[in-house]
């Protein structure tokens, strides 16, 4: 038996292998490798971009969160400011009202005092007048009484003269 036949390539098989392999390569390239590799790399691309998008979203989320916090802080500060302002306004209104009321009250008190004063004056004047009239009447009656005798009249004159001396 010839053992070189194992290592002698037969022309027929070389011929058919070459043709078959080229055919197989072309067909598989067009109908299998391109779609499969295309799909795989497309998927890898989409996974990559999806991951990137997720990362982006995460970052955006963080931004949003910090934004939110900032806005919240601002809102809180604004609220505080508003409350403070309101308190101030309230206080000012109250104090103003108090002042107004005090002024009003003072005014009323003053008017009342003035009225009382004038009433008092009037009353005093009235009393004075009545006292004067009364005194005059009394004096008239006393003088009439005293000047009814000669002695009495002389005595009076004397007293009066004495008073003048004293003065």
């Amino acid at each position, binding site marked *: 038996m010839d053992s070189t036949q194992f290592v002698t390539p037969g022309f*027929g098989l070389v011929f058919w292998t070459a043709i078959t392999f080229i055919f197989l390569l072309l067909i598989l390239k067009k109908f*299998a490798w391109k779609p*499969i590799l295309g799909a795989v790399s497309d998927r890898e691309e989409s996974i990559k971009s999806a991951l990137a998008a997720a990362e982006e979203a995460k970052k955006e989320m963080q931004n949003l969160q910090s934004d939110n916090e900032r806005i919240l802080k601002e809102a809180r500060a604004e609220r505080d400011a508003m409350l403070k302002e309101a308190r101030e306004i309230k206080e000012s209104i109250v104090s103003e009202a108090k002042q107004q009321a005090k002024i009003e009250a003072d005014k009323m008190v003053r008017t009342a005092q003035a009225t009382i004063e004038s009433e008092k004056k009037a009353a005093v004047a009235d009393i004075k007048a009545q006292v004067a009239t009364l005194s005059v009447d009394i004096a008239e009656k006393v003088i009439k009484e005293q000047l009814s005798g000669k002695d009495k009249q002389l005595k009076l004159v004397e007293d009066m003269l004495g008073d003048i001396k004293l003065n």
Partner: protein
Amino acid sequence: MKLQSMKTRFLTICLILFSSSLVFSSETEEEGAEFNPQAMITHHVLDAHEFHIIDWNHHPISLPLPIILWTENGLVTFMSSAFEHDDSGKVMVARNGGKFVKLHEKIYQLDAGANTVSFDAEHHPVNASKPLDISITRNVFMMWVSVIVLLLIFIAAARRYKKSENNVPTGIAGFIEPLVVFVRDEIGIPMIGEHKYKKYMPYLLTIFFFIWINNIFGLIPILNGANLSGNIAFTFTLAIFTFIITTFSGNKNYWKHIFWMPGVPVPMKIFLMPIEIIGMFVKPISLMIRLFANITAGHIIVLALMSLIFIFKSVFIAPVSVGFALFIGVIEIIVTAIQAYIFTVLSALYFGMATEEEHH
């Protein structure tokens, strides 16, 4: 647990198929004359012009295959059944004014007046010529079967992506995609490089799956030794393809490394040039021999182990033979993938070397 039992079942099936088919095919040779293991093994490992399946009641059952010959009178075609299963050059077939006989799976065209082929001392036929034989042999037939299987599997897988909306692999694509991605990520990208691998992917993928499936087909016993990837013609052709692609991909840097190695003194450059030129051819030759030798060796070992039963003519040898054949068979299953992987990796490595940019 389930996987384990499936594995066991698979191995059992392998065992049964291996032993039965080989025993059947060897039996007939036992009947007529003394069993000749060398002839049996040679017959199984080499190519054949008909697809012999089994002998039944001393009658071979086989699939006739077309014989295509290019003779001086032009193309001659007939079915291999015309030889009536004869392989000893006794049955003569007359077609297109030529007389053909088949001897040891070689077809000879007899000269006028001759009835049998006779050889001289150097084993050259004296009264016959050898026409160019491009028959659809057993290996060509199995190659086409493998092509059909590959096309069915991979086009079906590719269709799956078109059907799905977001490129999700479903069904058969789920099995195929990891393999394709493996070839891309473990062979293409690391060997050739991120930027250039795409151009070579169709070749690498095709060669990987083409070799792998034919390695596997060689292990299926009922196909009776369709030893395509263990045939030197097949590995020679694929190695030639790798060589051609490598040579045509070679850039300036590649050729410079072959003819005028940079970075070494001039005498060394002159010394290295012939070595590098030889290396250019040794690479594909090593590819060719590695695949051929590995696959053929596996076949020969299994067949030789089976032959032991008939050499010792004892059924008690059978458990030993079957046990060893099973062991080798399991190794061979791994070897089918490893050899396909090695051929592809080395092809990719050569492409990578040919396209490597200068970076000194």
